[in-house]
């Protein structure tokens, strides 16, 4: 495996998720070129990179929304590449989609309930989600469209957690939100990790991502340009990998 994760001694021998030499396509356009990443149980990993670097394509491939070679993505040792999204969800991978993707004709609570409709057992239920995000409890009966951007993001995260995932994929959860709201949402991530859930954070907000994750992959034009422990990477290294200069 060309990946250097093991060198840092944080990913154990059998990772929760292993992406190996993944190619992904939007129609005829190739978005990922031989990308390999790994994440261990309970770990938080950040995937950073500029617009169009392939971050969302990576998450969509893992979640089953983009085609992939079966053995390119292994979850708990089983190949899941190219599986339909509903089957991937049933195995315990939940995606918080870019732009939140709340169901507009469902109330806040109905959005949460539909996240839990697979009935996977685990620590998260409506009550726990309302404890994590109290503002959602106040607005549970309202249409999801009536929430502010930050509240919508909380609802989207809550909806994903309702599935009691082993792996939570977060696509640009800071997008379009005020910095204070972003800090507020990021402050809840340790509680989520505390339940044993692994998190892959896709972010353009590098500072936020480095604070929340233990390891970082930097994508550049569909390839992994840099990887390492968040605390070891220097600004210069990241800038070089991010912008390709």
């Amino acid at each position, binding site marked *: 495996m060309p990946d250097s994760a093991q060198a840092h001694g944080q990913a154990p021998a059998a990772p929760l998720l292993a992406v190996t030499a993944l190619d992904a396509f939007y129609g005829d356009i190739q978005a990922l070129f031989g990308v390999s990443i790994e994440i261990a149980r309970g770990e938080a990993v950040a995937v950073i990179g500029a617009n169009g670097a392939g971050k969302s394509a990576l998450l969509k491939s893992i979640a089953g929304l983009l085609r992939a070679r079966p053995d390119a993505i292994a979850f708990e040792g089983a190949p899941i590449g190219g599986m339909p999204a509903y089957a991937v969800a049933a195995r315990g991978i939940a995606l918080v989609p870019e732009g939140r993707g709340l169901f*507009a004709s469902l109330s806040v609570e109905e959005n949460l309930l539909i996240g839990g409709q697979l009935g996977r057992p685990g620590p998260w239920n409506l009550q726990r989600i309302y404890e994590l995000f109290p503002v959602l409890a106040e607005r549970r009966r309202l249409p999801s469209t009536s929430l502010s951007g930050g509240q919508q993001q909380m609802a989207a995260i809550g909806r994903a957690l309702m599935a009691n995932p082993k792996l939570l994929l977060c696509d640009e959860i800071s997008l379009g939100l005020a910095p204070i709201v972003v800090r507020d949402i990021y402050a809840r991530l340790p509680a989520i990790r505390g339940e044993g859930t692994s998190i892959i954070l896709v972010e353009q907000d590098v500072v936020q991502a480095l604070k929340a994750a233990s390891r970082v992959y930097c994508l550049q034009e569909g390839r992994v340009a840099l990887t390492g422990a968040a605390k070891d990477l220097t600004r210069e290294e990241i800038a070089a990998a991010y912008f390709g200069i």
Partner: protein
Amino acid sequence: MDWVNVILQGVLVGGLYAMFAAGLSLIFGVMRLVNIAHGDLIVMAAYVALVVTQTLGIGPLTSLILVVPIMAVIGYALQWFVLNRTLGDDLLPPLLVTFGLSVIIQNGLLTLFTADSLKLQSGDIEVATIRLVEGVYVGVLPLLQFVVAVAVIAGLQFVFYRTALGRAFRATADDPAVAQLMGLDNRHVFALAMALSLAVVAITGVFLAVRANFDPSQGPARLIYGFEAVIIGGLGSLWGTLAGGLILGVAQAIGAHINPGWQILAGHIAFLFVLAVRPQGLFPKVRT
């Protein structure tokens, strides 16, 4: 009293139109599929009921116990094997395929049952009437049909807004891709919606066949009434669909009372009037 009777009859017939429309409205609401074969499926349900009543020697209303599940299974299979393949960004393939289906059903029924006009016999209930007040009478059968129509609409409303299945329908209608992330298999959700739609079609077909004669060519006319009721009521609103059916029924009854030749014309005029002054329908739910 004359006009009270006319409007009452219109309302009762309107219940049947609302049932024509309910299945159509449900399918459009969940998967944006316009089912051109809807009317032919109603007529097909009437023939299924005919076979069931003749084979088992039971009455048409009792036969619903079998006809409803038979049509629901046909609906699931139809969606799973045929219609799911037509769904996508383009609205044209499902239109063409259901149009083809309409032709196939009509000709299949013609081959199997000939063009003879048939009717389901339900015995004494057909002629029984209730006197409401002096001079105002309602038939038991039309009344039952109306009550069933309201119950069907209320039942669908309950399923849509109070059950996990309805939540899945609405979520999939909102955003099919994100619904998959919740573990919902769109193909299965759509097939369940079509099964539910054809269960309603089964009830509609039996009441249609008890009320009047039917033959294989009648489907498209039922489809038109269904469409008109949906458009008058507003897309995606079930209670609106009931209102649409009633408006259509009352307009037809009034037209027929003025001049027997104006019955169908009056219904279409009421539809065109609503389309002209309120093109989104009376109670629209769908954002377009």
